[in-house]
């Protein structure tokens, strides 16, 4: 199964990096969409089938918290797995997100292996690694 992934981050550079790491990590990518904030992410979701959302928390216009809330309140989107990729590392800030059904969390700075481990956990048996190796990979 090829996954359509939505990457949401206000840094174009970070979006490019995550996209690259997803390929290296072995996720069978379908289409890879990018949004600079929650509002752009919702627009993409309205017009495309998305299997996985990887989102930053701190973003202008509409942040990750508002995006997660909107996803969980929409019956079409509420089952889409969401993984936070964020500089935020404080438990008291992150706890409400896990209570609202966010499936995973990757703290920046991260290694490619961190993303692979998170996706393997979330996607479980659906994970189909390709033949690329992470060991010694170069960003």
């Amino acid at each position, binding site marked *: 199964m090829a996954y359509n992934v939505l990457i949401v981050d206000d840094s*174009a*550079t970070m979006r490019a*990096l995550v996209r690259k790491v997803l390929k290296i990590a072995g996720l069978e990518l379908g289409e890879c969409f990018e949004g600079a904030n929650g509002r752009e992410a919702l627009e993409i979701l309205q017009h495309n089938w998305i299997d996985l959302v990887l989102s930053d928390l701190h973003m202008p216009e509409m942040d990750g918290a508002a995006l997660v809330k909107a996803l969980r309140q929409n019956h079409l989107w509420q089952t889409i797995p969401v993984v936070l990729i964020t500089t935020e590392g404080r438990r008291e800030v992150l706890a409400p997100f896990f209570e609202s059904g966010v499936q995973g969390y990757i703290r*920046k700075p991260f290694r490619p292996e961190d993303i692979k481990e998170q996706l393997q956990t979330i996607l479980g048996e659906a994970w189909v690694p390709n033949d690329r190796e992470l060991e010694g990979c170069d960003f």
Partner: protein
Amino acid sequence: MIENLKAATFEVLETMFFIFPESLEEAATLFHGSGIRAWVPVQGPKKFRIGLTMSLSLAREMAANFLGLEKDEVSPERIEDVVKETANMVAGSFLRREEAPGTFNLQPPEARPLDLDGEIWKGNAHNLLLAVEDSGLEVFLDTSH
């Protein structure tokens, strides 16, 4: 506090950029040429800024490492974005290490160019001067804002 800032900086540079800074006395003599300064304002019970200053050549090397590109393939916009994102990650790691309450919030990072030869470089209680090969790297915590 400065130890947590140092640990946060080393964590980010080593994990994301494969760059290993050193604490050397001569670091203050390694700031030359065109540079860039990026910082993240932190809002909350106290307001402060966490940021980095470095030469454009070091910033270009970091951006190339970050994106897996050759140095001459990295645009000025990407260089600025990478330095801002670096400041963002250092600030996030610092707040976590300080166990800062959730009332402290990171604001969007900002950046500006800087003539490194026009500044006085001296380490103090609120900044670190580090050496990355032959370049200087300043990490600062500015409480005056």
